[in-house]
């Protein structure tokens, strides 16, 4: 089984991860200002994002 990893791969995924995390936190803050319950929704996306081992 080929398990060779492109050395840029982790960097790309980390960058994507940072974008997802930042977007989720900013959106949560904005949604929370409207309705605190809605702040949980973008955070749920963030919690799902780092769940890849189950996929």
């Amino acid at each position, binding site marked *: *089984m*080929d*398990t*060779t*990893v*492109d050395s*840029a*791969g*982790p960097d*790309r*995924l*980390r960058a*994507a*991860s940072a974008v*997802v*995390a930042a977007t*989720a*936190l900013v959106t*949560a803050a904005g949604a*929370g200002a409207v309705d*605190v*319950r809605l*702040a*949980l*929704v*973008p*955070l*749920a*996306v*963030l*919690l*799902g*994002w*780092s*769940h*890849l*081992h*189950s*996929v």
Partner: protein
Amino acid sequence: MGALTPLVKVARDWRTWGAAVSLYTLSGLGVTLAAGAGIGELGHVAGLPGRPAFVLAAGLAIALVLAARELGVLRFRLPERPLQTEKVWMHQFGPLGAATLWGLHLSLGFFTRVNYGGFWLLTLLALGLGSPRLGALLMGAHWLGKALSVWVAPLALRTSADGSEVVGVWDTDARHYRRVQALGLLAAGAVLAVWLTTLVSGG
């Protein structure tokens, strides 16, 4: 993901990949919206929304404990079935059929591995808050986050024909993703703390 991603990098078939990942995302979204609404309705029937302060305090405590687990401060196993989905479906049903079945199977979370605590926090919140609408939103959003990782996976894959390469990327960077999970749990805990404070202060 390990099976869907090579459709792009090996077969160079963006159309099939796009259709497969779309079906994967949408089939899972349908399941999680229904499951979240069902869990919320179950909590409503059980009368849990009548004790919001208790639910929020318990949710806050659970978020902190799960974050500590992701950071390695605490060590315990999460409830899970140590199973993965059926890769053979790709051969039996083709990429589109398999992707749909994978979305249906993996989205629930109760039938496969649960390596991170966020899934259980959201499930317990959906139950405890007793709102079918909020339950659907939380479980559906969690699934969209899971599916998002499949959409971006081709960014990291180079040439492997069986998808093991991108799984390897994620494995070698597991500590980073545990920190991201902890960040999400701590942020959710902060939201619950604000909500609880507002409730207690009568706001």
